[in-house]
């Protein structure tokens, strides 16, 4: 048992150290072509990639939900945008608007936050430096008269460089 423990320890340490190295060299020289464009890579990491507002009543506003947006690449992004889709249930065609979801970078009052739209809108000034990150806050307010159902929504965060 002790030997197995020691072996696990060594393997885990090696995995952690090597994964750190691999993550930074963009995949290793064997995967990189000669015509790689100058400027490195820009990346987008979301933690988490889904949020949950829970069970809400009509006219009720949710609590704050967040995701951390990070550029884990070596180059800054030149665009950073957010867009969404209408809230829709699985069983019926009834939806309620995407704009009932609000977002910002500070988690302020629902009314002070920006409405999510189906068209892309810049976030964080559109630029995120390499290895930089920020927290994106979401809140939802259920409109009056919405049919009771389990609704879902898809949000897309787009980064360019």
């Amino acid at each position, binding site marked *: *048992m*002790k030997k197995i*423990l*020691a072996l696990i*320890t*060594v393997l*885990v*340490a090696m995995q*952690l*150290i090597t*994964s*750190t190295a*691999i993550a*930074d*060299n*963009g*995949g*290793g*020289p064997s*995967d*990189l*072509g000669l*015509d790689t*464009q*100058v*400027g*490195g*890579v*820009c*990346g*987008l*990491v979301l*933690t*988490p*990639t*889904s*949020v*949950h*507002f*829970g069970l809400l009543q009509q006219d009720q506003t949710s609590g704050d*939900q967040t995701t951390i947006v990070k550029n*884990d*690449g*070596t*180059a*800054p992004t*030149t*665009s950073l945008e957010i867009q969404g889709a209408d809230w829709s249930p699985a069983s019926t065609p009834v939806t309620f608007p995407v704009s009932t*979801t609000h977002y910002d970078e500070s988690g302020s009052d629902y009314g002070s936050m920006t409405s999510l739209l189906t068209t892309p809108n810049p976030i964080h000034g559109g630029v995120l430096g*390499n*290895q930089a990150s920020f927290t994106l806050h979401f809140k939802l307010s259920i409109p009056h008269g919405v049919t009771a159902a389990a609704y*879902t*929504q*898809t*949000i897309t*965060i*787009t*980064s*360019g*460089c």
Partner: protein
Amino acid sequence: MKSLLLVIVCLSVFLSASITYALQQVAGPLFFTVPLGGSSSARYGLVNDGEETITISLRAEGDAAKYLSFPSSVELQPKKMVYTEVTANIPENYDRASGGNIYGWMYALQQGAPGQVQINVQMKKNVTIVIPGVPFVERESTTIQTVQTLTTAQTTQAQSAITGSFVMTPANYLVAGAAIGFSIGIFFVVTKRRGG
């Protein structure tokens, strides 16, 4: 037995914290020079910086979209850069009045985790097609990123990504130090148990 349990719990927490959705792309626009009736190819570099194999959906938008061909999806292994070939085809009967400059975008979409609100990760790439001999026309162009003014550190990192060499950043030192410290701690526990 308690020490063993502690080690297993610590390992689980430490390893699960490193699992994330992470998509990267090579910086710079996709640029094609295509003669009438001809074709040209470029490569779209994508990296899965996460821990699991993922499938990315590719699509194009804008005026250039109808001239581009590429696979609709691509599988990315963890920590590997994959170049996907994108081909621009300009027909012989191309309407010269449309101009010799065509713009658009390519998108690589990674689905978020299923949930009440699924948040997708998407990379966007500017595309330019130039047709020699056909006059340019005034049109709304994509905001093309040309040359970034990089700091010394950014330049070093960018060169590292291109050559594949490894540069230790402060964050890397921190993670590597934590990993080594963690390992020493576990060794200490194991040694103590063996001695006791």
